[in-house]
C-alpha cells in the first residue's frame, strides 16, 4: 500500500500513513468493492447500449479510474457537494445517485435524473449533493469556489469538491480559482483526476511543469498527491483533505490513475501503445482491492460470485425500468 504524499504550501514534502480506520474497516472495504464493481458494470452496460444504438450522443467512460472516484466520494458526507466532469458517471454513483435514474437519463426518459435534458455529461442530483456535471473543461473550478463560499456563509459543516482532469489544470479558470479559494479560505477540495491524458495529449506535451503537485505552491495551497488506483489510499487521502477543507483550508488532491477506455466514442487510440493500456489493465483498481480482501480472507470466491450476480441483477433491472418508462416530455421553459 502506498503512502500519502503531502506537499505543504511552502513545498516541503512529507509522507503520511493511510487512515487506520479505513484499513481496519472491512465493512467499508466490501462496500467500496461493491460500488466500484457497480460503477464498472454501469459503464460497460452503457457502452453496450450505445453500441447497439439505444443511446444517442456520446459517452465518456472512466474505466480504470474507479478507485479515484469511489474512494473519494466514500470519504464524503451526504451534505458535501460535488461538481463532476464530462467523465462523471463514476463519481455520481459513488455519491449515491440512482443508476436507474442514470440509465433513464441516457435513454432520454422522463424518469431520467434531468428528465432527458442532461444526458451522459450532465448527471445532476442535488438530493445527493451532485450540484453540477460540467461539459466545459475547467469550468467547475470557479463554481466550486462559490458553492464553498455559500457553505461557509451558511455555516454548514460541509465542503465542496471540484472534480477536474489533468487537462483542465491548464485552463485559466483553474488558476483563477486556486487563487480565489486560497485567498478567501474556502472549504473546497480540488480533486484532480490525473489519468495521464487530455483526449490525446499526454501531460508532458501539455504541462510545462509535469510535477502536478507543485502547482499549489504558487497559490499558497497544500497538495495531496497519491496513487489513485488504490481505493484505500484515495479514501484516506480524501478524509484528510476533507478535514482541512472543513477548517477552511482548501486543498489540491491529485489522484493518479489511468483511463483504460478511450476518451469518448470518437477515440481511435492513435496516441498510445496497446502495451501501455495492457500494463494498466493489470493494475486494475477493482482487482487490486478484491485480491487484498481475498488475501486477508475477508471474502472468498463464492462471495465474489454472489456480488457479481447481485450487480448483474441490479444493472438489468435498472435498464429494464428505464426502457419501460415513458419518453421525456417537453420541459417547462
Amino acid at each position, binding site marked *: 500500500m502506498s503512502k500519502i504524499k503531502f506537499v505543504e504550501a511552502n513545498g516541503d514534502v512529507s509522507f503520511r500513513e493511510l487512515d487506520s480506520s479505513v484499513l481496519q474497516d472491512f465493512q467499508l472495504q466490501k462496500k467500496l468493492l461493491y460500488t466500484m464493481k457497480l460503477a464498472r458494470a454501469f459503464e460497460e452496460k452503457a457502452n453496450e447500449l450505445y453500441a447497439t444504438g439505444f443511446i444517442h450522443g456520446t459517452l465518456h467512460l472512466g474505466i480504470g479510474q474507479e478507485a479515484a472516484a469511489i474512494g473519494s466520494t466514500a470519504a464524503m458526507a451526504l451534505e458535501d*457537494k460535488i461538481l463532476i466532469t464530462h467523465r462523471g458517471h463514476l463519481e455520481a454513483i459513488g455519491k449515491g445517485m440512482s443508476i436507474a435514474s442514470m440509465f433513464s437519463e441516457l435513454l432520454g426518459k422522463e424518469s*431520467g*435524473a*434531468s*428528465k*432527458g*435534458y*442532461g444526458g451522459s455529461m*450532465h448527471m*445532476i*442530483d*442535488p438530493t445527493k449533493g451532485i*450540484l*453540477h456535471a*460540467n*461539459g*466545459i473543461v475547467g*469550468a467547475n*473550478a*470557479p*463554481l*466550486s*469556489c*462559490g*458553492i*464553498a*463560499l*455559500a*457553505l461557509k*456563509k*451558511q455555516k454548514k459543516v460541509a465542503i*465542496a469538491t471540484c472534480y477536474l482532469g489533468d487537462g483542465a489544470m491548464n485552463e*485559466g*479558470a483553474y488558476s*483563477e*480559482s486556486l*487563487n*480565489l479559494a486560497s*485567498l478567501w479560505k474556502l472549504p473546497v477540495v480540488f480533486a484532480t483526476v490525473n489519468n495521464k491524458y487530455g483526449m490525446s495529449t499526454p501531460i508532458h506535451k501539455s504541462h510545462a511543469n509535469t510535477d502536478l503537485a507543485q502547482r499549489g505552491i504558487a497559490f499558497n495551497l497544500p497538495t495531496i498527491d497519491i496513487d489513485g488506483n488504490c481505493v484505500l489510499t484515495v479514501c484516506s487521502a480524501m478524509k484528510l483533505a476533507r478535514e482541512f477543507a472543513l477548517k477552511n483550508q482548501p486543498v489540491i488532491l491529485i489522484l493518479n490513475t489511468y483511463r483504460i477506455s478511450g476518451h469518448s466514442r470518437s477515440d481511435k487510440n492513435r496516441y498510445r501503445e496497446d502495451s501501455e493500456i495492457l500494463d494498466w489493465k493489470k493494475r486494475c483498481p477493482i482487482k487490486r482491492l478484491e485480491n487484498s480482501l481475498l488475501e486477508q480472507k475477508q471474502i472468498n470466491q463464492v462471495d465474489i460470485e454472489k456480488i457479481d450476480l447481485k450487480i448483474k441483477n441490479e444493472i438489468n433491472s435498472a435498464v429494464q425500468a428505464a426502457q419501460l418508462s415513458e419518453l421525456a416530455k417537453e*420541459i*417547462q*421553459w
Partner: protein
Amino acid sequence: MVRKLSIRLALREAMRQEMENDETVFIMGEDVGVYQGVNQVTGNLVYEFGSERVMDTPISETAFLGAAVGAAMQGLKPIVELQVADFISVCLDPLLNQAAKIRFMSGNQINVPMVLRAAFGAGLGAAAQHSQSLEAFFCHIPGIKVVMPATAYDAKGLLISSIRDTEPIVFLEPRALYSDESKVPIMPYTIPLGKADVKRKGKDISIITYGSMLPVCLELSFILEKNYQIDCEVVDLRSLQPLDTDAILNSVAKTKRVIIVHEAVQFAGFGAEIAAHISQTDLIYELKSPIRRVGAKFTPIPFAKHLEESTLPQLKNLLTEILAMFELT
C-alpha cells in the same frame, strides 16, 4: 415619500433595501468596497454591511462570476458587479455555459438566482474596449434575462425585481446616465420584468427604444411636436428578455409608423428583432411608412469626442429619419 434620486443612488438604494430585507443577498466585484465602485454605485454600502457582504474580489472575473453562479446554486443571491459590460469577454463561460444552462440541464432541479450588473455604453471617451452596447449578444443566450433601465425610478424597481427573481439576470446600466435624476419612492417597490413603459403618449409615430437612447428620444419628440406638430409615442422597453411584444404592437397599431432606436450597432442589433416582430403581424399592411431602425455605425467606438459622437445615433440623424417618414424632407 418620493424624492429625486440619480440612477446611481436609486441602484444603491435598491441593493441596500434588498440586503436589509434578505440576508442571503450580497455584492461582489472589483473595488466595490472602500473604493465605492468604479462607477460609485455601491458607494458606502461596505460601511453599512461590512466586507463579508460587500466583497472586493481579485481582478479575476472568471473566478468571481463563476463563484457567484456557484453561490446562487447553493442558495445565496449574489449581485455581481462587472465594471463595464465589455469585460464579459474574459468571463463569458460562467454566464453562457453555466448560469444560463444549469436549470435547464439539471431538469429544473437547480436555480441560479444571480444578478450580473454591468455598466455599458459610450459617450465618455472610454474608447473601443470600455464603451460597447452588447445587449443583443446577451439576448441571444436562452436562459438569462436582460434588463435595461433608463431612469432612476425604473432602475430601483427593476433591480429589486431582478434580485428577487430566481433566474440569472444581466442588468445593464447606461453609464452615461448614472447621474440622471427622477422621482423615486423611498419604500421598496418592484417593476415586473418584461413590462415596457410608455414614457410619452402620442398618436403619429412610435419610437421604440431602451437604455441610453431614451433621453435622446424624449428630446426628439419634444422638438418634433414643437416644430413639426408630430406627436410621438415613446416606448421604453426596460427589459429585452423577456420582451413586451404586446406593448410594441399596441403602440404601432395606434400610430402606424415606427422607428426603433438603440445605441448598439445597428447591424444585427436588437432593433432587427423588434422589426421582425412587427413585420410578422398584419400590422405590416397598415404601416404608412416602412419600419426604420437607427443604431450606431458598424465600427468599434473611437476615442476622440467628435469621432465618438459621429459613430453613435445623433439627434439630428434621428430627426432626418423621422421627417422622411412623414415625407417632410
